[in-house]
């Protein structure tokens, strides 16, 4: 399959998946807004109104970390099983196997755009003024998108080869959650470990999101550039691996 055809069929499938997902609910597309709104209200009620935890602005701090994190975690979790779930299709048609994980990434990313819009609306409602630095969200979202693709490809291929890994990946993601500074500030950990901490690209991205959205300053561009560059390199490597493994995958997942 030519690359242009692959891209258009990935887009078509993602679009239709979103449509199909929406069609299972009475309120269909409204849930793309309702779900994040309800979640944010939950956090607001618990941390701001009930517990009054973490000092002023903690809910905003938490949500700006949590929203990008959930995009990453959900996508990688779903994508890791995508090749196994696609076995019915790939055993009837010769489909490039990249198709399966990339569709998941695209479909989760479209929904993420709406979640980010809801988040910004929420911030304005709780009294955070709009800032020009919010424009940094555009490169930030792009870099995170670039980062998620190789993660999705690596995990899906790994699970296709060693099915047992599907039990390990959710735990690994959970561990990464704690190591990404979602609910605590990276400045609170010992300075000796900060550099080590920032080796985790999600930790660095979360810091950057907070800089741009909450602290009215621009993110560390060179750090973002490094993440983007590494992601592209791993992505290219994975494309080669997927091509080499293409015909083995249909047989592997069938067992």
């Amino acid at each position, binding site marked *: 399959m030519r690359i242009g055809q692959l891209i258009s069929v990935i887009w078509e499938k993602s679009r239709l998946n979103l449509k*199909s997902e929406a069609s299972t609910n009475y309120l269909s597309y409204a849930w793309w807004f309702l779900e994040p709104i309800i979640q944010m209200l939950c956090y607001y009620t618990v941390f701001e109104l009930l517990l009054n935890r973490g000092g002023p602005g903690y809910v905003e701090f938490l949500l700006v970390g949590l929203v990008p994190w959930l995009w990453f975690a959900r996508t990688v979790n779903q994508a890791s099983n995508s090749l196994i779930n696609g076995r019915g299709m790939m055993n009837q048609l010769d489909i490039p196997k990249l198709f399966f994980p990339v569709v998941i990434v695209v479909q989760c990313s479209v929904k993420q755009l709406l979640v980010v819009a809801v988040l910004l609306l929420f911030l304005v409602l709780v009294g955070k003024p709009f800032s020009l630095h919010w424009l940094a969200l555009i490169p930030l979202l792009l870099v995170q998108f670039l980062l998620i693709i190789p993660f999705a490809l690596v995990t899906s291929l790994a699970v296709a080869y060693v099915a047992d890994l599907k039990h390990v990946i959710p735990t690994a993601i959970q561990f990464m959650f704690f190591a990404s500074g979602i609910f605590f500030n990276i400045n609170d950990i010992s300075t000796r470990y900060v550099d080590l901490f920032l080796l985790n690209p999600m930790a660095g991205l979360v810091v950057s999101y907070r800089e741009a959205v909450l602290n009215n300053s621009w993110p560390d561009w060179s750090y973002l550039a490094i993440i983007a560059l590494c992601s592209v390199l791993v992505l290219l490597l994975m494309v080669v691996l997927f091509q080499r493994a293409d015909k083995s995958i249909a047989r592997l997942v069938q067992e």
Partner: protein
Amino acid sequence: MSVIISLEQVGVRYRTRKSLFRHDYYDALSDVSFEVHRGETLGIVGNNGAGKSTLLKVLSGIYKPDSGRIVSSARKTSLLALQAGFDPNLNGRDNAVLMGMLMGYSRAQVYAELDNIEEYAELGDFFYQPIKTYSTGMRARLGFSTTSFLRPEVLLVDEVLGVGDKGFKAKATATVQDFIRSDQTVIIVSHSEQTINNLCDRVVELEKGRVIKLESLK
């Protein structure tokens, strides 16, 4: 006659896991060699477990042989009556589009055939209903209709296709016969030697993964 697909000593070996480091092997195909000519109708017969399904997967490019090789100059080879890509929550039309695009056709090419596909499948308003409301026969009709209008260069026909009720079965059989009479390359798999004898130009007989007979019928 020009050769469109040629198989050279193709072998496919399945590995069955016994425990962490122990495996058993099972040869689904071994040393299979034959050629498919452009425009002909080739039959493949054999009992259950003879390797017919595996051979179909090799021919459609889903499996790569573990030994030997397959050389194909066909741009598209596909099973007739796909069940692939069926998303139960999407309607018949969307599923047809997806299937067609996954077969390698552009969006525009598939859209151009949608009216024909809809009419042929005889699904009525169900064409716009989610597939989960379909009966098995209706799903098969949609799959058959989609692939037969898109017409891949080489069509693989599994004779045991359950294409719905009596009326539709007759129509589907007529369509397959039209393909056979035209310059379409068709490969038919069956355990019934009679079907093969009626329809095919040549026949390959498989037994335990090996070709035991290769003969011309016409």
